[in-house]
């Protein structure tokens, strides 16, 4: 059965990507972030003598390993700034603020952070600022809540930064950096057609116009010919187990008793096998060639699993090309 249908109305679904990266710290990063927890700002002296804040482990110019720590002041000078009228999720302040690069007194490079100021007219390059510490500090860049204006602080002193051992009790050795991004997923034409057909309990493959292979589920292109699969072909619903494995470890958030069988199933008329769980038969009786049919999910929108049809097993020659 072949039919060409127009692209269906676009499907959309929320897609949340969340990942808490756990990162270990090198000795310089560890000293710097532990120092922030203790309201102490450390820099590192580069090979050429410059003091880098925030400090890095290797010289940005020579790549030499850097370990000579110094303490700089919590006051500094804005080297450039940008007014942010609409703070975004995760940024340091909820009300409009200025992004600033600040060269702390004693440092030769600038650190990026937020400046709490009433408006853009209150900010300028060269203005004096000081750190506002977060009330609760854990050893992270966010231990600096933000900067605040400190015009009373006068001009930066010429005092050399003081050497510092970098040793603190209970040093921070790692950070956990949580991140969440909210996407809206849309699957494209071929997969939209496939999903719409599934909701009508039909399995729709797409045929390559060049080599005639039928792809299920379709992704929109034939990977052999590099052309769009244009014709829709209804396949199945019955199929043949081509190969399988027995799952013995329970997946988190998955309410399926182990052991169970996960199989490659070649639906009748399809040019390749798809994945599915096999139910309705003891796990140790599943075999290659077993004939199966879909059991639809309660909402009827996708095959929850496949069960035996009771037909005789398929002959190996009928599915060996699909293994």
């Amino acid at each position, binding site marked *: 059965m072949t039919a060409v249908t127009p692209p269906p109305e676009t499907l959309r679904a929320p897609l949340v990507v969340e990942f808490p990266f756990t990162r270990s710290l090198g000795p310089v990063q560890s000293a710097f972030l532990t120092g922030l927890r203790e309201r102490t700002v450390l820099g590192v002296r580069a090979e050429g003598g410059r003091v880098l804040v925030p400090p890095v482990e290797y010289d940005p110019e020579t790549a030499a390993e850097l370990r000579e720590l110094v303490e700089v002041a919590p006051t500094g000078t804005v080297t450039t700034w940008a007014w942010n009228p609409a703070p975004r*999720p995760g940024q340091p302040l909820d009300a409009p603020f200025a*992004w600033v690069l600040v060269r702390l007194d004693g440092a030769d490079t600038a650190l990026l952070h937020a400046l709490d100021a009433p408006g853009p007219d209150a900010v300028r390059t060269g203005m004096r600022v000081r750190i506002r510490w977060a009330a609760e500090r854990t050893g992270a860049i966010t231990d600096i809540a933000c900067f605040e204006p400190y015009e009373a602080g006068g001009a930066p002193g010429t005092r050399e930064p003081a050497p510092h051992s970098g040793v603190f009790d209970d040093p921070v050795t790692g950070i956990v950096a949580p991140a969440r*991004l909210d996407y809206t997923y849309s699957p494209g034409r*071929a997969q939209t057609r496939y999903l719409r057909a599934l909701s009508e309990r039909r399995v729709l493959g797409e045929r390559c116009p060049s080599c005639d292979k039928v792809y299920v589920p379709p992704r*929109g292109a034939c990977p*052999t010919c590099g*052309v769009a699969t244009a014709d829709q072909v209804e396949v199945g619903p019955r199929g043949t187990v081509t190969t399988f494995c027995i799952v013995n470890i329970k997946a988190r958030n998955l309410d399926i008793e182990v052991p169970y069988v996960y199989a490659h199933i070649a639906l009748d008329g399809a040019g390749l096998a798809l994945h599915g769980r096999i139910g309705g038969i003891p796990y140790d009786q599943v075999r290659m060639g077993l004939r199966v049919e879909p059991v639809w999910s309660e909402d009827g929108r996708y095959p929850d699993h496949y069960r035996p049809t009771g037909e005789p097993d398929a002959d190996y020659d009928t599915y060996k090309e699909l293994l």
Partner: protein
Amino acid sequence: MSAPGRDVAIVAFAQSGHRRRTDDLSEVEMVMPVLHEVLRQTGLKTSDIDFTCSGSSDYLAGRAFSFTMTLDGVGAWPPISESHVETDGAWALYEAWVKLLTGEADTALVYSYGKSSPGPVRDVLTRQLDPYYLAPLWPDSVALAALQAQALIDAGATDEAALAAIAARSRADAAANPYAQVTGARPQGDHVVAPLRTGDCPPIGDGAAAVILAAGDRARDLCARPAWVRGMDHRVEAHSLGVRDLTDSPSTRLAAERAGFFERPVDTAELHAPFTSQEVVLTKALGLGDDVRINPSGGALAANPLMAAGLIRLGEAAAGIHRGDSDRALAHATSGPCLQQNLVAVLEGDPRG
């Protein structure tokens, strides 16, 4: 580096019509017409391509290993000689160019694509930053560009009116570019992050691009006037923003020098400057004068499909040579915050006559 031993040229270029959203298309559905177009231009079949290299980023659409799906569009089965870079396709072109220089391949297909519409792209881009000192603050891409713009203004290198003029020129030129997303006269708009206004920022959109590279006589067979890659190089700035002089781009200058840019004048420069202020930095770093046409395509201010916009600069510069509008062009691509990484290629057409 300069091109030793072997002449390699861009012989075909195609791009999609860049759009704010492409919800109706999967990535491979967006990429395939562009791939087919460069094959059509050269008469090559997928099986004639010796090496394929692509550029994309899973973070844009939030899909892991998305490039394996788009590989379906090049006919990658049975397995082909293939590679991928998780950045702008200009760097994929660099890899393909090196492959051709080694003599291991005579033809290469390079493509890249990006769908920025599914996610909050300003926030997504914060995930490429230093994970210890920057990423926890979520400084978005416009904020970082605005810090650079303010540094330029403080240095007396530009002002808001000059930036607006760059925006206006880019979008006026883009009116002749049928693939551009934002064209013609537009208001500069409000500050997004001051001093940058809406007009100073690139449009957010989805798009794809592809080029075909070929070596020596193969290039002459496939294209009436190949765009020979005379040199190409890419360099990176120091990691920390606060270490850099944001008003300059020494990495661009060094890449340009190694690519042979300073040996002879160019007539055209395609600069990958997503923000107006970044064109100021690049123009200054390269010493480009009024005799050089900058971004006749409209540049990234007219269409900025992430991961493709840099490759498009190389493609647009090459297409100008193919058409005979240009004889020697500079193409530049960038990646990362505030022009962190920069690639420069010098392209030439054969003398006319």
